[in-house]
């Protein structure tokens, strides 16, 4: 009866329960995810996430391309934080091959990474509301997000797959129009915040759908290695930008918002405040933008980093994104392991989703902000 009976699900098979394949074609599965659920009525008894539908073999490509040729791949691993991954990869290789990065390039990297984080949180905000039924906030979020995409398009040339980083800096310098547009975006975001707060955050139906739903305990987070806003919603203020500062993050003063509830509402509030913190970082970075070159004089393309194993991590919109690089001294990487935050988030879902209702599953998956392409890699 079931083409893919996971052993875990075959145990108690009484007649009241039935299997339901939620996905891979399902409106709120955030990419291509299939949840194999065993339900009694609307209550979920067991859940086995089936992944691999969007597997593009990034890690295999990494082993067949030189270090510079793998650059375009990095902004396609997690299409929502393309910029953060792209620049993260550049910083990892720079650290490995000890390449100097000009100060202005570091500041630009912080600005565009935080813009990318806000854009990712805005898309999460819209789709989370879509998952619990509110359609209009989705359009408002995309209206704001469109501003960021056009700002980034001006300087990188593309809206999503940026390939903006180069070893030793960034590919293009930012000009006054970029700075002026970013400042007007920041004022617009702060003007919109109270509207979102009243329309969504205070809405009684939204509160009822989120409060106390999908609580992730600290043990579960610790067991599965969960990081990012979901972990901060449990009260642990772990953020790679603070724990292992890179690209000059230590000079900016920003807080790490945390909550203790660990439910959908706490995750929602953490991300909303994170957007505000990112605005603060951008503002400080714009005010103290140093002059100078943004990339090395000569375009670095032949690169032979020293042999060995290196690890470098950045804070993506979804959590701790780590790159474990093994180099054998050659021009082609021996291995790159991409440790993505959504992978551990989704692996904990089989434990978190048990005992919830179908409607809650969609809300929890929406609030945890999982992106499938970065799980399947």
């Amino acid at each position: 009866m079931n083409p893919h009976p996971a052993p875990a699900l075959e145990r108690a098979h009484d007649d009241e329960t039935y299997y339901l394949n939620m996905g891979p074609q399902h409106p709120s599965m955030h990419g291509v995810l299939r949840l194999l659920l065993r339900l009694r009525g609307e209550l979920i008894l067991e859940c086995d996430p089936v992944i691999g539908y969007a597997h593009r073999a990034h890690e295999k490509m990494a082993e067949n391309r030189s270090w510079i040729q793998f650059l375009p791949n990095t902004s396609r691993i997690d299409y929502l934080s393309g910029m953060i991954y792209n620049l993260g990869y550049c910083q990892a290789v720079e650290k490995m091959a000890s390449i100097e990065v000009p100060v202005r390039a570091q500041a630009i990297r912080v600005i565009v990474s935080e813009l990318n984080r806000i854009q990712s949180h805005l898309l999460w905000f819209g789709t989370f509301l879509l998952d619990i039924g509110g359609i209009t906030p989705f359009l408002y979020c995309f209206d704001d997000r469109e501003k960021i995409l056009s700002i980034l398009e001006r300087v990188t040339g593309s809206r999503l797959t940026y390939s903006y980083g180069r070893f030793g800096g960034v590919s293009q310098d930012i000009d006054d129009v970029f700075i002026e547009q970013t400042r007007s975006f920041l004022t617009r975001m702060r003007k919109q915040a109270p509207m979102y707060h009243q329309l969504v955050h205070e809405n009684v139906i939204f509160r009822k759908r989120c409060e106390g739903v999908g609580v992730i305990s600290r043990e579960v987070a610790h067991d599965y290695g969960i990081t990012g806003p979901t972990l901060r919603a449990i009260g642990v203020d772990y953020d790679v930008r603070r724990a292992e500062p890179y690209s000059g993050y230590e000079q900016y003063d920003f807080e790490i918002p945390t909550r203790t509830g660990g439910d959908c509402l706490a995750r929602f509030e953490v991300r909303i405040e994170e957007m505000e913190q990112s605005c603060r970082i951008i503002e400080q970075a714009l005010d103290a933008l140093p002059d100078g070159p943004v990339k090395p004089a000569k375009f670095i393309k032949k690169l032979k980093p020293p042999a060995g194993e290196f690890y470098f991590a950045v804070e993506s919109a979804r959590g701790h994104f780590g790159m474990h690089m093994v180099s054998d001294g050659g021009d082609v990487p021996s291995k790159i392991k991409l440790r993505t935050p959504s992978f551990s988030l989704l692996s904990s879902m089989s434990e978190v989703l048990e005992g919830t209702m179908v409607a809650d599953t969609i809300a929890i998956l929406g609030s945890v902000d999982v992106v499938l392409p970065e799980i399947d890699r």
Partner: protein
Amino acid sequence: MPRTLLDIFGNPFIATGVGIGAVMTVLSINVLFCIWFERKVSAWIQRRLGPMEVGPQGTLQTVADMVKLLGKQLLTPAGIDKPLYHLAPLIIFAPVVASASLLPFSKSVALSDLNIGLILVFMFGGFAVVGIFMAGWGSNNKYALLGAMRSVAQNISYEVPLLLSALSVVLMVGAQGGGQIEIGDEVIQLNGLNLSHITLAQTSGLWFIVFQPIAAVIFFIAILAETNRAPFDLPEAESELIAGFHTEYSGMRFGLFFFGEYSNMFIGAMLATVLFLGGWDGPLLPGPVWFFFKSYLLIFVMMWVRWTFPRLRFDQLMAFCWAVLTPLAIVNILVTAFALKVVNG
């Protein structure tokens, strides 16, 4: 008292023929307009333009949709329960035509004027549930089954606050001013269940919404739940059940579901107008204009609510009905009865 079709034509067959024709045209025009109106209202709210390509301001968009739906292939999935699957859209659509003919839209003419009009409308309203359940159960699809189970529980439990809030209006009609009213020369004993009598009771005095604000809100919320709209659209929750009970329908069968939904919405709005907003009563403009203006105002509010609120979870939906709406409606009836007893002595 409005002259019914039967008085005009005498012969019942001609009367019913004309009646059905009139109702079908009104409902089709209403559906064509409502679909376009809903897309425009949602567009205005969401900083969009809505359909603009077909016809000026996209007015012919719904006609284009209908032609497309007619042209689409009717997919019939395997393993379906044939009678249930094929009859479901008709069951949803047919009672709507019947209940549309009961509503009094003008002083002089009416399609039919029965002294138990209110009860008949609620009875026909109850048929929709059977149709939805047949659709969900018959289409051999787990999502449709989930949607069907949800719709049965939701529609049945929201019948209770619907009736109770209408009951308080019926009380008001019977007890106001000794229950008589003079029109011209004849004195009519007001009968609370006759829809035109309810409107007549409001034309003389204030509209019932003034006396019964809570009942009006409860009635409006219950209408939303009955027609599976807005915060209560669990049976066809896109983000959970893909398309709920009409997942396996395509082409004109899906169009019929759409037809049924918007007609039910239209009937609900007209019923609320009759009960609370004084039907055809209004200064200057003729009766029907006021009647349809108020109905479409309510339809606009329904759409406005739909594009603002997220969706309730299933158990919250039930709790809201039984723990909030029903007790409030009962208390409302008691208060109304007590107040009328005191006022009328």
